[in-house]
């Protein structure tokens, strides 16, 4: 069936459509710089949206939890082996993606008889000078560096809108509490972009969910890579108190 180039291209195209359809309802993860480092935030029905990968690297995932988990474990294995065999300084997202996971993902995606990975990742790191860097990895192995942060989202429209807003907002100058509030705002407004204007009153699924509903229905997961941390591992998840404070600040009318 795949001897003819057209058939293969058609199969790949169908595969793209299939994966995109599966990812469409994935909840966004937003990554931005803030005054002291980098912040990743997302809502999720089940625990497991934002994770620590290595001393200075964090990731957020979207898609099928089992596939996100496989990619997360692969990144963890690669990072820890590299950090052990060489040095923690040699563990960078660029190396993990370019020489590690991206080629494998591409190969997996183009082997059309294998199940594709239903996942997208957003990775963040702080370099030794404390400068944040962000990377987005697609299910087909394509990855890109995001200079000032960005998002992954099931809807391309939502993702582009949040990316644009992140680019326009001076997040790097914000303290953590302000950055958190702004990111939550972007999350809510971003999700509205997926709703066609004339259907706003009819849509009742997760697409038009408000922040208030999201806090009640799902778990908010947020973590920072903080340049001021005194320990080797600079990753820190927001604790229940911080999330409660954020919830009160962004849901009060």
């Amino acid at each position, binding site marked *: 069936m795949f001897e003819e180039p057209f058939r293969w291209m058609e199969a790949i195209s169908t595969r793209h459509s299939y994966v995109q359809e599966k990812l469409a309802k994935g909840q966004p993860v937003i990554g931005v710089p803030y005054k002291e480092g980098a912040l990743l935030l997302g809502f999720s029905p089940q625990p497991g949206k934002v994770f620590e*990968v290595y001393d200075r690297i964090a990731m957020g995932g979207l898609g099928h939890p089992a596939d996100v988990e*496989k990619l997360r474990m*692969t990144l*963890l294995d690669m990072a*820890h*082996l590299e950090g052990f065999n060489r040095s923690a300084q040699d563990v960078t997202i660029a190396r993990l993606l370019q020489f590690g996971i991206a080629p494998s*993902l591409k190969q997996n995606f183009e082997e059309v008889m294998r199940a594709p990975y239903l996942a997208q990742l957003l990775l963040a790191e702080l370099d030794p000078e404390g400068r944040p860097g962000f990377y987005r990895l697609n299910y087909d192995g394509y990855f890109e560096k995001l200079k000032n942060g960005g998002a992954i989202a099931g809807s391309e429209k939502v993702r582009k809108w949040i990316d644009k807003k992140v680019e326009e907002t001076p997040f790097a100058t914000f303290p953590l509490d302000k950055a958190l509030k702004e990111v939550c705002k972007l999350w809510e407004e971003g999700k509205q972009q997926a709703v066609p204007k004339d259907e706003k009153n009819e849509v009742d699924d997760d697409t038009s969910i408000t922040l208030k509903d999201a806090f009640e229905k799902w778990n908010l997961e947020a973590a920072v890579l903080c340049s001021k941390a005194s320990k080797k591992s600079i990753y820190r998840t927001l604790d229940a108190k911080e999330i409660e404070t954020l919830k009160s600040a962004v849901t009060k009318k």
Partner: protein
Amino acid sequence: MNSNPDSFHPTGDFFELLKRTGYHLNASSSNLEVGDKFSVLQGTTVLAFHYKDGVMVAGDRRATAGNAIMYERCDKVIPIDEYSLMAIAGVPATAFEMARILSHNFEYYRRSQMQSMSAEGKIRALSKLLKENVGMALQGVGAVSPIFATYDLKKQKPFIYFYDMLGAEFQMHTHCATGSGSPMIRGILEHEDLWGAKPLVELSENDAAKLAVRLLQTAAQFDSATGQARPEDKLFPVISTITAKGYHFFPDEDMGELFKKSMDRG
């Protein structure tokens, strides 16, 4: 690097992961002859004891090869994770490698399983490494006899474990010391605990630190393989603590003052 997401093994065991890549802690020892285990050199004094707020862990800085002093600024108390320290005595190459494996093991477990390894698991992990190293230890080229101290977050208390070079682990409820200088100070520790002004476990951090400095100076008086402090060169022993807040090393800038006070009588 194994970059294939299809081949993951979610055990959380970094040592297993290392082995899958072909790593062996003592890969090159198979053709060596069995040596005399009693001739193993242990040029070190490291010690640990319980004090009021947690555990004090300290060590001298000298590294020796036979009669030669090779290095005077060796750090023999190594952070393994936020709540654990390992004090090493024995062959530094093996000891440092074990510390690196342990450190990666605990962090890998915490990140992959999304929870910290239990204190019991941490204690056993070092025992497992020592057992892997039995061949090297018996051949007299890789013996390590460490002290492992950790704070158990669940039980809210610190623990000190002493290991023999074959991997047996012994929980120490008061104090322990290892290395060539340890026989000189074990008696002092016991004496201080039983008949000192206060039992060790009631000492304040400051008094515990002073005692640790004095013990290491004493060991250095009688054991040529234990390094003395040299304040004129800003060379001091390593003094550290483990409490509910994690580990803490006395910074270099504080050590001068601590050493001076420790050397005063009283």
